[in-house]
């Protein structure tokens, strides 16, 4: 049975698209047939981060409007055979997405035997964000350890509880997962940032992972490769943990403790 997962946050710039790219790649690398859909109509970011911007011919709006078939619009990922990207349109606005159209596209993806369908939501709580979350079975709530991001995540959780199809039809509630990104244990230690416990205390949903703040995310975006491909970096490992936990494996939390550099490290500056 296919699972539809919305990646959302309310606030912008917290790492939704980065997380969508790495999460969907991680699922595909483990052999699951996965599609990732960019709902940020008018801006289009996902294709850049996935490094497929030059192969975009048709987009989500074309498919919703019946101007192209899904097979024409889906772009096969350059690294994984199991991963397909459906980009957003840069030339339309978010109102071009209709609920019926989205439902049809998602139903078709389910028929094409996709196991996971990841919906990368735009920021905000407007039409585009609503369209991304309406049909979700599960939600990854991307949150930075910072007050305004937490407040916006709280808001979007309330909207999921009220506006999703599952909520409207009285079905089983959308399963929520908290993904904390741009986490810096050092700044938490110095009281410059909320700890993950603080964030969880406010949002009160299960934590699926913590992605440390890292420059490798920027390198990855600039190169057009999802961060999870950069083997050995803490970010890649953290996303691998997230995917593993999502698939039901137990993984201990990592990258949450600040280790003060030891004396030798400070003297010699070695790793």
């Amino acid at each position, binding site marked *: 049975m296919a699972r*539809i997962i919305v990646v959302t946050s309310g606030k912008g710039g917290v790492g939704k698209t980065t997380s969508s790219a790495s999460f969907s790649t991680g699922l595909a690398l483990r052999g699951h047939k996965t599609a990732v859909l960019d709902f940020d109509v008018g801006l289009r970011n996902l294709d850049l981060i996935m490094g497929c911007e030059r192969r975009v011919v048709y987009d989500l709006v074309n498919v919703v409007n019946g101007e192209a078939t899904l097979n024409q619009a889906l772009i096969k990922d350059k690294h994984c055979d199991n991963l397909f990207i459906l980009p957003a349109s840069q030339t339309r606005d978010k109102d071009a997405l209709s609920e019926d159209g989205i*439902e049809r596209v*998602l*139903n078709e993806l*389910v028929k094409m035997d996709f196991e996971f369908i990841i919906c990368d939501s735009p920021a905000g709580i407007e039409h585009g964000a609503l369209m991304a979350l309406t*049909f979700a079975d599960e939600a990854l709530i991307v949150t930075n350890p910072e007050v305004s991001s937490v*407040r*916006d995540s*709280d*808001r979007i*959780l*309330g*909207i999921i*509880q*009220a506006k999703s*199809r*599952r909520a*409207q*039809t009285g*079905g089983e509630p959308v399963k929520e997962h908290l993904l904390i990104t741009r986490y810096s244990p050092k700044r938490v230690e110095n009281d410059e940032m909320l700890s993950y416990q603080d964030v969880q*205390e*406010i949002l*009160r949903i299960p934590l699926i992972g913590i992605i440390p703040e890292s420059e490798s995310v920027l390198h990855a975006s600039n190169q057009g490769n999802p961060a999870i491909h950069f083997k050995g970096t803490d970010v890649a490992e953290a996303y691998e943990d997230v995917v593993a936990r999502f698939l039901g494996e137990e993984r201990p939390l990592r990258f949450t403790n600040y280790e003060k550099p030891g004396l030798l490290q400070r003297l010699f500056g070695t790793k």
Partner: protein
Amino acid sequence: MSKSPSSLPIEIKISTVVAISAILHSSDPIAIDAALKQMTGGVSDFFEDEFAVIDVGAIAAGATYIDWRALVDLLKKYRLNAVAVRGATADMIDAIKARGLALDDGAGGDRAREDVAAASAAVTIAPASAPAPAPQPVQAPAPHTVTLPAMIVDTPVRAGQRVYARGCDLIITAAVNNGAEIIADGSIHVYAPMHGRALAGASGNADSRIFGLSLQPELVSIAGVYRTFDDGFPAELARQPAQIRLVGDRIDISSLTSHR
């Protein structure tokens, strides 16, 4: 994926909305404007697009002419959405209907008040010449006799969400977060950290109280008397069991642990 629940083009369900009452003591738009300006202190989102019931009961007898259009636009300027008029006289009715406003004739007493949804906070609009209106209820509606069982909420109340326990107490066993609003005609009890806005005695019961295990609200109100916490909730009472009562026209916060 699930199908639409119904093929009907429209579904009708009873739903309760919360509105504030704007009780007019003057029909002069300039005086009302001045009073609102003073009340909101220039905070543009003071009323956050709430629904408003215009109560003209106090001035209707004088048969003053009311420019409804100007009045609705004026309230809109302060982000109050006028939806109905209460206490109108018969000769006003055509003009009110022409503006698309509903009539709340008040004849049904408590029932009518409930139908329009009890006022969450009575806003008094006095002529500008009057001293700055202190946040207090001017009209004391007959308190509801709380006979309904309490409304119990077991899920977190999140930013942007609003819970209203009409005609009864409200008991919440999960967290109330900043940006949320919890309202009851009776008392409010929260058995988890309470942030956000809490309004007890929303239809005028001044004996209502707010109880919490760990209070840090942004605003509390009892029977329309409210208190905000710009400088933060009193530190000696925050994050511990406490109750909030109305003593005279003042909101009183006291610890529930010191009485042990």
